[in-house]
């Protein structure tokens, strides 16, 4: 006679006891090995009180992490193995020439674009390179000769300034892209100068930008200013900051845009822009607590960024790099995308 006991439904294992609170906090913090995390996740599915505590911890930890993102690490020091020694008479002569040029040039000159065609050549696709370096190669390869990144006439509209701002933020994001060295510096400098030049033009499309989009531009310029100290970036950064501060004082920034504005003001504060700290304080008093409490998803500054991000475009790569930044963290990006080799770069 066949033993049919195997077909009998087995009794479910008894519900495990609730884990200690420290375990829930650790899980919310992303700690624990795979097995422990899986066990806790199973428990959380069935235990409402634990899930409530876990979610409360996760929200608080997310807010704490946002504090840290606002004061992220400065870029790593750039060291070179060997320095060129100049003859002793060169520095004074060079200084005299620089002073002469400064006196001769008009004081209201536009920021000069930096040619970047060499930058892309310096970082060629190579087999076996890490994802960060592939992204860096893609971003550098997609930069236009005048320094901007193309919005590609997609849902971002015809505005290249926003796309350039996002890519600059990615390039300036510490530790995310690996050491790009001189090529990276060149790309950032030329992209920032293109953006500063664009902001100096009376362009109707720029004046129509929403506060969140302006915040992206301010964050990019302020981070670039802090990193390379390019004095041509100070004025457009200050102008953008003034604009956002005025809108803030007049209550003209919708709550959904506030995480982006906060992000930009944090970058401006780190760049020591005058008024950034006070503006950020003002914003924190206006930011509805419900937004943080509910961990509401801040919408992208672009209407259809998710659709754009599904392709392996430079913008998608830039957003991948920035996805741990507070305003970007919650964007849904779809399947992972890794540009491969030369085909990925335009």
């Amino acid at each position, binding site marked *: 006679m066949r033993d049919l006991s195997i077909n009998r439904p087995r009794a479910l294992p008894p519900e495990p006891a609730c884990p200690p*609170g*420290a*375990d*829930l*906090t*650790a899980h919310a*913090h992303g*700690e624990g090995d795979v097995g422990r995390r899986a066990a806790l996740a199973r428990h959380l599915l069935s235990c409402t*009180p634990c899930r*409530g*505590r876990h979610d*409360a*911890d996760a929200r*608080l*930890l997310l*807010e*704490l*992490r946002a*504090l*840290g993102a606002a004061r992220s*690490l*400065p870029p*790593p*020091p750039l*060291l*070179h*193995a060997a320095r060129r020694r100049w003859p002793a008479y060169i520095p004074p002569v060079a200084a005299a020439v620089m002073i002469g040029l400064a006196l001769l040039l008009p004081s209201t000159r536009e920021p000069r674009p930096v040619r970047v065609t060499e930058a892309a050549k310096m970082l060629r696709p190579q087999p076996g390179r890490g994802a*960060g370096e592939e992204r860096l190669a893609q971003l550098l390869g997609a930069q236009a000769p005048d320094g901007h990144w193309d919005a590609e006439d997609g849902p971002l509209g015809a505005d290249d300034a926003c796309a350039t701002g996002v890519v600059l933020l990615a390039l300036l994001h*510490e*530790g*995310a*892209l*690996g*050491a790009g*060295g001189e090529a990276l510096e060149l790309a950032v400098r030329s992209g920032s100068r293109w953006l500063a030049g664009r902001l100096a033009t009376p362009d109707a499309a720029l004046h129509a930008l929403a506060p969140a989009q302006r915040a992206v531009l301010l964050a990019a310029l302020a981070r670039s200013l802090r990193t390379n100290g390019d004095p041509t970036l100070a004025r457009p950064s200050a102008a953008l900051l003034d604009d956002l501060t005025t809108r803030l004082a007049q209550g003209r920034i919708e709550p959904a845009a506030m995480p982006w504005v906060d992000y930009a003001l944090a970058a401006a504060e780190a760049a020591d822009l005058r008024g950034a700290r006070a503006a950020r304080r003002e914003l*924190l*008093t206006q*930011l509805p*607590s419900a937004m*943080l*409490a509910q961990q509401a998803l801040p919408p992208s500054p672009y209407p259809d960024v998710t659709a754009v991000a599904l392709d392996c475009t430079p913008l998608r790569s830039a957003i991948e790099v920035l996805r741990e930044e507070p305003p970007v963290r919650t964007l849904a990006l779809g399947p992972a995308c890794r540009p491969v080799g030369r085909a990925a770069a335009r």
Partner: protein
Amino acid sequence: MASPLRPLPSGELSDHELLRAMAAEDPTAFPALVERWRSRVVNFLLSRGADHASAEDCAQETFVRVYGYRHAYRPEAPFTAFLFTVARNALLDWKRRRARHRDREGGEEALAGCAAAAPAVGPWERLDLEAAVLRLPRRLGEVVELGAVRGLPYQVVAILLGIPEGTVKSRMHHAVRELRRLLGGEDTHA
């Protein structure tokens, strides 16, 4: 490339190899690096005019930054140059911050004083996490600063603070409870 300042015994990884191992998320690499260089970084900072407590804090900040740079690091220059440049920058940032607080706000004591002076935590103050973190006891505050704010794994926090990982875990839990209490939210933890 091995550090010229310290000949390596056989079998010991060089500094560059340790950085590579850190980038590959090898959990043993960071403790080894901290153990190898911590005292020398502290001495370097002391020689630059920091008092002992500040030198310890700046050394901790130095290793936090080195950990953060582990993916970006490239062995193009001696590790010592990289490490002590990071340490010098950490010290300069600390001095700048201290001077700014003295000039504008009356020092860290004033910040802590402002936080302590808040009579009752209302709905608006719930957002002021920074003030709440400042009100935490030091042993909890440093865990929150490194683990939650800086986003370091518990293991790294444990190494930097010289305490067991389990202690980091329990302190983080207590800190989160305490923060929630300070922010006026209900704390339902047992």
